[in-house]
């Protein structure tokens, strides 16, 4: 109990994962304090999404531990970790495409509140759930699309639904995997504005390729190269680090071919 007041929101220690002979994560350490704004950068194939999968429990680590508020959750399955306050968004949309935006968010609300265990309808309790989901959508300026099936929504709006689902879990730790990926640059500011105005209590880890966004948003940055953390520091330190410039920033000119 006392630990949870002082422990970081998320701590990973010595996390490693091999696929056969291929090490996709090597002894990764990372700490996210409460309210952290932490960016994870690195070249393609560095293992950034793998790390998110290890933290959320999609993948089991070969070694190392994941601590949430000081509690070891390494042995817990994905859903149990989600219920303890880890939420994520996906690099490629993972939505309930045939359902409306509102129903999408309601599913997440129902899981968090435990309503999803209820096997009978209840007008009063369903209304509370819907109101909460609508409030969530309103905060993201999605309320107007509440009754539109997700598959009929433009891609940029779908990316916002990704975030809405994660936020509906009321997470303490939020992992954003390239939230603006695939969105036309004219619309990406909508998503980045949402990211910038997230609840300051939530610890956020963001994977992002756009360096402007990273340096504007993050208070700390980790650079992941070939499955290992090459360096970690403040944006100023990272910007000044010649190794980072060499492996990552140096190639940014030809990254988007």
């Amino acid at each position, binding site marked *: 109990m006392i630990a949870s007041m002082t422990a970081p929101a998320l701590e990973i220690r010595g996390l490693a994962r091999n696929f056969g002979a291929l090490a996709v994560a090597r002894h990764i350490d990372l700490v996210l304090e409460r309210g952290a704004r932490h960016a994870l950068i690195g070249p393609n194939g560095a293992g950034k999404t793998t790390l998110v999968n290890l933290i*959320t429990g*999609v993948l089991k680590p070969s070694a190392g531990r994941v601590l949430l508020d000081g509690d070891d959750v390494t042995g817990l*399955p*994905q*859903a*149990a970790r*989600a*219920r303890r306050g880890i*939420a*994520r968004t*996906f690099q490629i949309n*993972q*939505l*309930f*495409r*045939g*359902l*409306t935006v*509102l*129903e999408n968010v*309601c*599913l*997440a609300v*129902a*899981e*968090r509140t435990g*309503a*999803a*265990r*209820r*096997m*009978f*309808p209840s*007008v009063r309790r*369903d*209304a509370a*759930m*819907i*109101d909460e989901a*609508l409030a969530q959508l*309103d905060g993201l300026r999605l*309320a*107007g699309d*509440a*009754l539109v099936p997700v598959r009929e929504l433009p891609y940029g709006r779908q990316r916002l639904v990704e975030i809405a*689902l994660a936020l*509906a*879990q009321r997470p303490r730790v939020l992992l954003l995997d390239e939230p603006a990926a695939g969105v036309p640059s004219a619309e990406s500011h909508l998503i980045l504005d949402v990211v910038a105005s997230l609840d300051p209590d939530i610890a956020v880890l963001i994977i992002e390729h756009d360096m402007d966004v990273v340096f504007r948003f993050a208070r700390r940055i980790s650079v992941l190269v070939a499955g290992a953390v090459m360096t970690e520091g403040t944006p100023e330190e990272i910007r000044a680090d010649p190794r980072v410039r060499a492996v990552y920033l140096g190639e940014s000119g030809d990254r988007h071919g």
Partner: protein
Amino acid sequence: MAATDEIAVAARARRFLAAHARLRPTEALPWLVAVAAFFVFPDRLTFGSQVLVMALFALSLDLVLGYAGILTLGHAAFFGIGAYTVGLLAARLDWTEPLTGLLAAATCAGFAGALSGVVLLRYRGLTLLVLTLSTTFILQEFGNVFDRVTGGYDGLPGLSFSPVLGVFDYDLFGRTAYLYALAVLFVCFCLARAIVVSPFGRSLVGIRENTARMHSIGAPVHGRLLVAYTVSAALAGVAGALHAHTNAFVTLSVFDFENSAGVLVMLILGGTGRLYGAFWGAVVYMVLQDSLAKFSPAFWQAGVGLLLIVTVLFARAGILGLVEAAGRRLRGGGP
């Protein structure tokens, strides 16, 4: 101004979601038809109760296949367990009271569903298909091996059951059987309906639409599927028990592949994930079977084959899907 827009949206949204749960006038139609059939076809009531039994069986499949998206080819296992539960109780233990028989059948089939589901539901695709198919054949072999209890392939003929509620005796014209089956179907429909419009039921749809996301928003997917599978198995067991009650016999052919496939075809014909697809699918399937099989069984089998192929290629949402599409067109092509 924006505020009034949002209030309007909120009100619409609440009505929209409540509409899932609210009874629509069209939902009375199947029941009106079923009651009307009782008066219009007094000499076809035995056939009528078979239709109702299959509608219940298809409804049970809709819960797992249509809502939760579990692809099974072995649902006849639970139908058979239900049928043999009341059959054996009546034939071997002289337990002939029908309503407690239904409960016993639901319990046995539900238990079998939970037990097999713990293992089976961890699999998907071909493996799940093969495992569900095999389970059914194992039960059939099991019944065959213990033929001194089960009657083997001859089954349990000439079962007799006590009057329903101690009052209504099974008559020669099938009137009691029909009304009894209709009442049980109605109760089971109400139960299934409550489940699918509940948050639990919506979470099953979520699992069907995107299992990975359900895991990541914290849903205990395996547990949810297991509950759904157990409830569905229990309902299939009730259908099997009704089958035994209304026919007064059971044979091992309840475990045939044709039974598992037949109920699947009914559900597909009617439309999956719509509850009432099970009802209309069973009606159309059974009536077609009844009229085509008169010419020859092969004729009927060809008919089912063609129907399936045409449905899959051109009317994947089934009869109810076609009706819905026609309704939308009539209202002026809006969404």
